[in-house]
């Protein structure tokens, strides 16, 4: 039985820029230790850590708790920087948290970035081979995969050209075709999969639905509320790294829409 259980998950990470990147300046700043506090309007709460004036700690998630059991289709909503993507990355195991309990049963697959793990200098075909290697596929399966992705992404001659030459739509097609190959028990999706032209979208929808159907748990973030209404059985509304509301789709989305309407973005 696939399930996800989060208890008091908090995550803060440093945003390094400017002189905090320099060992010399960090050591000097530590000696001086001047502290100024700032707060951000968008995104997680920020605090400037005491020992170096340029290290900004962003509290991306604070005390997030929920549990999701098999069969649930969960949507994540919230404004930009509310912690949706961070949460997906935590669930996918890309970010590790030191605080709280994270208990995940079942394999996860995250569609976070269409070009995840792709190398722009490699051709589409070579990227597929690399992907197959990552998944530990056999030679026969790799060839099968190559054919499948080639037909689906419909890139024609571009398939054998370096990915960096692709238009953004083209690389989404390739990334989409690849990312939708695994059949994980827990599927995590970011909203990028809605990209592409109309003809591709129809094709993509069928493929994605196949994947979603096979997954025991789906977690998706999107700003397209209509899609969430269609797909999800439950919505978690994130705000400043915290769960603001968690409940059945219509209930949460109605409240969310009302809140968004009041405060113009």
């Amino acid at each position: 039985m696939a399930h996800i259980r989060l208890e008091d998950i908090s995550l803060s990470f440093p945003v390094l820029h400017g002189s905090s990147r320099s060992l010399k300046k960090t050591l000097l700043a530590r000696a001086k230790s001047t502290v100024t506090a700032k707060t951000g309007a968008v995104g997680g709460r920020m605090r400037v850590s005491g020992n170096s004036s340029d290290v900004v700690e962003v509290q991306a998630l604070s005390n997030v708790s929920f549990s999701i059991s098999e069969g649930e289709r969960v949507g994540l909503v919230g404004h930009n920087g509310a912690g949706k993507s961070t949460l997906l990355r935590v669930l996918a195991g890309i970010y590790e948290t030191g605080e709280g309990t994270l208990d995940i049963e079942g394999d996860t697959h995250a569609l976070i970035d269409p070009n995840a793990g792709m190398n722009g200098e490699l051709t589409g075909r070579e990227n597929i081979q690399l992907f197959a290697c990552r998944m530990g596929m056999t030679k026969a399966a790799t060839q099968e995969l190559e054919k499948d992705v080639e037909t689906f992404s419909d890139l024609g001659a571009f398939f054998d050209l370096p990915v960096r030459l692709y238009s953004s739509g083209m690389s989404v097609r390739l990334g989409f075709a690849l990312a939708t190959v695994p059949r994980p028990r827990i599927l995590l999706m970011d909203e990028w999969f809605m990209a592409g032209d109309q003809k591709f979208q129809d094709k993509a929808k069928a493929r994605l639905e196949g994947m979603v159907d096979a997954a025991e748990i789906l977690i998706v973030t999107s700003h397209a509320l209509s899609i969430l209404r269609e797909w999800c059985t439950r919505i978690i509304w994130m705000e400043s790294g915290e769960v603001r509301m968690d409940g059945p789709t219509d209930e949460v989305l109605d409240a969310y829409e009302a809140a968004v309407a009041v405060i113009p973005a």
Partner: protein
Amino acid sequence: MSVPSPASDVARDEAPRRQTSRDTPRGSPAARAWADWKETQRLWRLGVRLGWLDIRLRYRGSALGPFWLTITSALMVASMGVLYSRLFHMQLATYLPFLSLSLTLWAAGLSSLIQESCTCFLDAEDMVRSVQLPLLLYAVRVVVRNAIVFAHNIVVPLGVFVIYHLWPGVNALLAIPALLLWALDGLAACMLFGSLCARFRDISPIIGALLQIVFYVTPIIWMPQQLGAKASLLLYNPFYPLLEIVREPLLGHLPALELWGIALATSAIFWVVAIRSFIRTRARLVFWI
């Protein structure tokens, strides 16, 4: 809702389902670092492949490919050999084989391994941030990449040996365990410098500058015998034993046991430092790059 396409169904059966229950926050940092290493071992093929791809990409579109490296180092050895044999009043026939081997071992071996270990995680930025893969996989990639470059460069001293009719004999086989030690040190360098350089971007140029100094104080273009009675001071240079355990066998000599002892001891200390720093920094690394 539609059914998945048949082709992807095949892929579905082949893709291994990772039936793992992840309890990430509960495991200690050391346990998680160990899990990282286990996962790297499982995916070693991918590490090797990434290393190969780096080389292929670096030389894509050039007909000679990585043999450009061979040509540049041949030119370097030839010009420096003629000049320095004159400066040091040495026979070209004794100096050139030594120099060609030393330069290759340093430039394509130790120095490049250390310098590239600095950007180990930075270069893999996109992958680290979007795909869940063990971090040590990128260390394997750097070591594999350097091994490939090394194999292309070692042709130059071999050519010089052929020209001067030198044959190191069976002693040369002793260079193999020493090169394995280098590979392990390379992994450790990735763990230590890779994470440090991700956090502090000025460390990489600092290491580059230090390597330049090490190049001159280590017997690479000059021979240890030239120091005369002061040669024992060289034992305080950790790079000297490390270099010597590979160079001596390839020149047909047996390296002193003492050199192996020091090389192993310094490596062991280096590993402990590197592993400890990796355990501490591993979870934060993704935020630094």
